[in-house]
C-alpha cells in the first residue's frame, strides 16, 4: 500500500493501463510534455512515448472524434477534456457518436473510450472550469458515468472504466485532486462500475451522494449524531449511470428516510433520478418525503460566491432535521 492523493491515484491507474495493454492511448490538451494542467498524466509521455501519450492541437471536438475513431478500431483511448466546461465543444462525440456506436451498428462496433474531465467547484476556478454537468451525461443512453470520491476508488474505478467495452465518462472532482490522501494498493485492482458503497452505517436516515459531497455529507452526519442524536447512513454512489438500485433500495428499506446531496444545480440531474428510483422501488418504506440538497438553478461561475452556492454542512444538517422530524 502507498499513501497518495487522488490525482496521483489517477496517474497510477493510467500508468498501469498503459503498461498492461498496448491498445491504451492517452491524449488531450497539454497532457504530454506538461503532464496535464493538474499533472494527472505527469511522467507518462516520458515513460510510454509520444505515440501513446499525445498532446493534441487545441480542439475538443477533434479530441472527441479522435477517440471515437480509435475506439472503433479496437484501441482503448483515454481522452482528457481539460475542464468540464470545455466538453460542450465535444458533445457530439461524447453524447452521440461514442455512446451510440454499439446501438447504431446493431452490435457490430463498440467504443471503449474513457473520457476524463475535472469538474466541480470549491477551488475558486474561473467560469466554465467548475460546473457539474453529470445530469447531462446520465441522460445519455450508452455511456456510463463514474465519479470517485477518494484515491482508492479513483484508481480502481478508472481501471474498470478503461477496461469497459462501452464508453465511460470519468468525472474527477477538482477539489479532491490534492486535498485528501488515502491508502492505495500499488498493484492493479478494480472497483466495479455500478456498485455504490455504504461509507457510513446508520439507522435514522440515508444520505445518497457522490464526489466531493461525500465528505461534506460525512461531516454533516457527524454533526447530526452529536447535535440531533440521529444515526445517519451515507451512501457514496460512485457510479452515477447506471445507478446501483439494489444498494439504494436496501438502504431506504433500512432507514425509511432519504436525502440526496449533489453539488450540481437542482433541476434534472442525479437527485431527481435517485428520487424516482426510490419512488418506484421503496415508496412504502418511506416515513418522509425524500429531500434534496443541491446547488441553485444558476450557473456556478463566480468563484467569490461559490462557498455559499455549494451545499454545506449546515444545509445538509437542516435537511436531516426536517426529514427526521417530518
Amino acid at each position, binding site marked *: 500500500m502507498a499513501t497518495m492523493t487522488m490525482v496521483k491515484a489517477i496517474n497510477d491507474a493510467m500508468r498501469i493501463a498503459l503498461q498492461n495493454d498496448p491498445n491504451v492511448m492517452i491524449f488531450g490538451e497539454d497532457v504530454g510534455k506538461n503532464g496535464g494542467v493538474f499533472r494527472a498524466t505527469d511522467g507518462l509521455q516520458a515513460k510510454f512515448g509520444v505515440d501513446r501519450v499525445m498532446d493534441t492541437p487545441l*480542439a475538443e*471536438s477533434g479530441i472527441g472524434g479522435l477517440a471515437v475513431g480509435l475506439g472503433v478500431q479496437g484501441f482503448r483511448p483515454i481522452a482528457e477534456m481539460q475542464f468540464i466546461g470545455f466538453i460542450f465543444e465535444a458533445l457530439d462525440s461524447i453524447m452521440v457518436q461514442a455512446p451510440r456506436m454499439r446501438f447504431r451498428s446493431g452490435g457490430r462496433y463498440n467504443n471503449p473510450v474513457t473520457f476524463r474531465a475535472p469538474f466541480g467547484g470549491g477551488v475558486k476556478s*474561473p467560469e466554465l472550469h467548475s460546473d457539474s454537468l453529470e445530469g447531462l451525461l446520465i441522460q445519455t443512453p450508452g455511456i456510463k458515468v463514474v465519479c470517485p470520491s477518494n484515491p482508492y476508488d479513483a484508481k480502481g474505478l478508472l481501471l474498470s472504466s478503461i477496461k469497459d467495452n462501452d464508453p465511460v465518462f470519468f468525472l474527477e472532482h477538482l477539489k479532491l485532486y490534492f486535498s485528501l490522501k488515502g491508502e492505495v494498493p500499488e498493484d492493479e485492482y478494480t472497483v466495479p462500475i455500478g456498485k455504490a458503497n455504504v461509507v457510513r452505517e446508520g439507522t435514522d436516515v440515508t444520505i445518497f451522494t457522490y464526489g466531493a459531497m461525500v465528505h461534506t455529507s460525512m461531516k454533516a452526519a457527524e454533526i447530526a449524531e452529536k447535535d440531533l442524536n440521529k444515526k445517519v447512513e451515507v451512501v457514496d454512489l460512485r457510479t452515477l449511470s447506471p445507478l446501483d438500485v439494489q444498494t439504494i433500495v436496501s438502504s431506504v428499506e433500512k432507514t425509511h428516510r432519504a436525502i440526496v446531496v449533489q453539488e450540481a444545480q*437542482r433541476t434534472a440531474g442525479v437527485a431527481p433520478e435517485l428520487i424516482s428510483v426510490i419512488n418506484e422501488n421503496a415508496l412504502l418504506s418511506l416515513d418522509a418525503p425524500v429531500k434534496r440538497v443541491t446547488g441553485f*438553478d444558476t450557473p456556478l461561475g*463566480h468563484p467569490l460566491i461559490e462557498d455559499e*452556492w455549494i451545499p454545506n454542512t449546515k444545509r445538509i444538517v437542516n435537511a436531516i432535521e426536517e426529514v427526521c422530524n417530518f
Partner: protein
Amino acid sequence: MAKTTKRGGGLAGAELQTQEMQAFQVLSPDGKVNEANLPELSDDQLRELMRRMVYTRVWDQRAVGLARQGRLGFYAPVSGQEASMIGSQFALEKEDFILPGYRDIPQLHFHGYPMYQGFLWSRGHQHGGQIPEDVNVLMPQIIIGAQYVQTSGVAMAFKRRGEKRIAITYTGDGGSSQGDFYEAMNFAGVFKLPAVFIVQNNRYAISTPVSKQTVAKTIAQKGLAAGIRSVQVDGMDVLAVYAAVKDARERALNGEPTLIETLCYRLGPHSMSGDDPTRYRIKDESPAYEENEPLIRFRKYLESKNLWTEEDENKVIEETKAAVAEAIKKADQYEKMTIPNLIDTVYETTPAHLEQQKQEYLAKEGK
C-alpha cells in the same frame, strides 16, 4: 462506361501550393523604419501608442504581483503582446465592437472598459461582466474560439442595420485549431461581413508549441481556405499591427473580412494558476524574443525622433502604478455578490422555481 484518367504529370499542376508570405513590418528590431509602410500618425499619436504600451506593461507586472499575493483570481499575463494588443485597438473607432479572449483585457480597457472591472472579472465577480452602456465590447471569453463565431453574428447585425462599424475578435495560435475558427471566417466570407479576425500567435497554447498545433507554415494561410483576405504581421511591431488593422477595418466596412496573424511571444506564463513555462519552453528561445520585444523596438524609434525620454517613461510608470492602486481599491470596495442576486440575473423574470429557491435560501441562510 466511365473513362479512367491516366495519372501523371497533370496532378502536380493541380496541387495547391501555398504561396510564401512575408510578415508585414514597419519597424525592424533595431528600431529602423520602412518609410514605404509607415502609417499616417501624428507625433502625439506615436507618443500615445508608447504611453499605452508602457502602461500595459506596468499594469501587467502589477497584476502578476497581485495574483501572486492571492488578490486576483484568474489572470493571463500579456507581456510580449503589447504591440499586437495596443496597435490593433488603436486602429478602431469607438463604435467598433470587440469580442475578446481572456487575455485581451488591455484592448477592452482602451476601448472604455474600466480597469477595476477587469480586476473584478479576474476575481470572478459578476460586476466584472457588467460592461458599461457606452462600451462596445463583450466579456472576455473562456471557451477557446467561441468569440470567433459570434463575431460573424455581431458583424451581420451592423451590416443589416447599415451601420459603419466593424466587429473585431481575437484568439491565439491554439484557438486557430478549433472548428469555430474556420467556421467564423467561412461565414464572414459568405455573408461579406464587416469583420476582422486576429490571431495573436504567441507561440504557445499553455504548453503546446505552435509546431504541434499545426503543420501549416502560417496560421494566416488558414484564412485562404475560407476564401478571405489573410495577412501576417510582425506582432512585435506596433506600427505594423496598427497599419494592418486600419487597412483591414476599411476593407471590412466594404464587406471584405480579413484574418490577421500577429507574430508575437508570450514572455510570461499562460496564467497565474500554477503554469510553469520551464516545463515546456524550448530551451534558450526566450532571450531572442526578449530582445525583440515590442517596447524596446518602439522606444528606439521614438527616441531617434526625439519623441520619447526617460522622463516620459517614468511619468507613465508612476501614472500606471497610481491607476492600478486606485482600481484595486475600487474592486476591493465593490459590494459583495449574493445568492439572491445571482438567482435574479438568470432570467429577465425569475421563474417560480428559482424564486422559491431564493426564498428558501433567505429564510434559512440569508443575512
